């Protein structure tokens, strides 16, 4: 099991969602809000293009943290995020994190997800049971 100490960086997760990812995520999650899957409508309401689901990006934050324990779905006990910038398909998302506290077998990781300078999720707190 990973030995994690306060201040340690978790391995970065880098994902470039393809053009059709929002459609697949819409089907998987049941969220068919057109701003995610209809580029024309998204532009008509002032967005740069169709945007990623915030909960998809949160899913990547969960994935980056679960990877610390080999993807064990029991390990993530709590995840709290603030969604900020809007993510877009076809641009790389980088999820990075720093161990904020480590007590016994519980660690809390402060996690961020960004596309370039655009922060999608910040102040994400992931509590993991090692």
């Amino acid at each position: 099991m990973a030995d994690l100490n306060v201040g340690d960086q978790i391995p970065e997760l880098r994902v470039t969602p393809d053009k059709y990812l929002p459609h697949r995520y819409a089907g998987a999650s049941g969220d068919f809000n057109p701003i995610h899957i209809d580029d024309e409508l998204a532009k008509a309401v002032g967005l740069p293009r169709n945007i990623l689901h915030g909960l998809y990006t949160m899913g990547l934050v969960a994935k980056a943290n679960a990877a610390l324990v080999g993807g064990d779905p029991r390990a993530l006990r709590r995840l709290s995020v603030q969604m900020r910038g809007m993510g877009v398909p076809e641009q790389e998302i980088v999820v990075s994190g720093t161990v904020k506290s480590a007590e016994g077998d519980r660690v809390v990781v402060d996690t961020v997800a960004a596309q370039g300078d655009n922060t999608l999720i910040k102040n994400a707190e992931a509590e993991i049971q090692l």
Partner: protein
Amino acid sequence: MAIKTDAVGKEWPATTYQVGREKIKEYANALGLDSPVHFDVEAARAAGFRDVVAPPMFAVVYSSPAVGPAILDPEVELNFAAMVHGGQEFEWAEPACSGDEITTTAKCLSIEEKDGKGFYVFETNSVNQDGAQVVRGTWTLIVRGV
């Protein structure tokens, strides 16, 4: 105009969701999750699960149907067109596995105005067919220009 807060404390009828293997697979594929416990029943059982197990964030799949009616309730008066999903928290207990029947209730925790924006906070609570706690969710929805 002051924001309407009458709905604070209101609860909505429970929704029930039947977790299935193919839906777990579809979700795991969309997120690029490759652990066999999400795809293969033998691997899941070998890892101590009753059946194929959902990834933690699959919580959105079975709990969001309970949030929809709360957001759209006229008593809440939430301007859906100007809404963004500002924050989300999940706290997990028992894992959700294929075959589980998960019941979720939703409640309005708070409605507040800050810097011209409305902050609507809802809580969901999901339990499985045995009455075991599965996940608690806190959904923060922000409405511009209230």
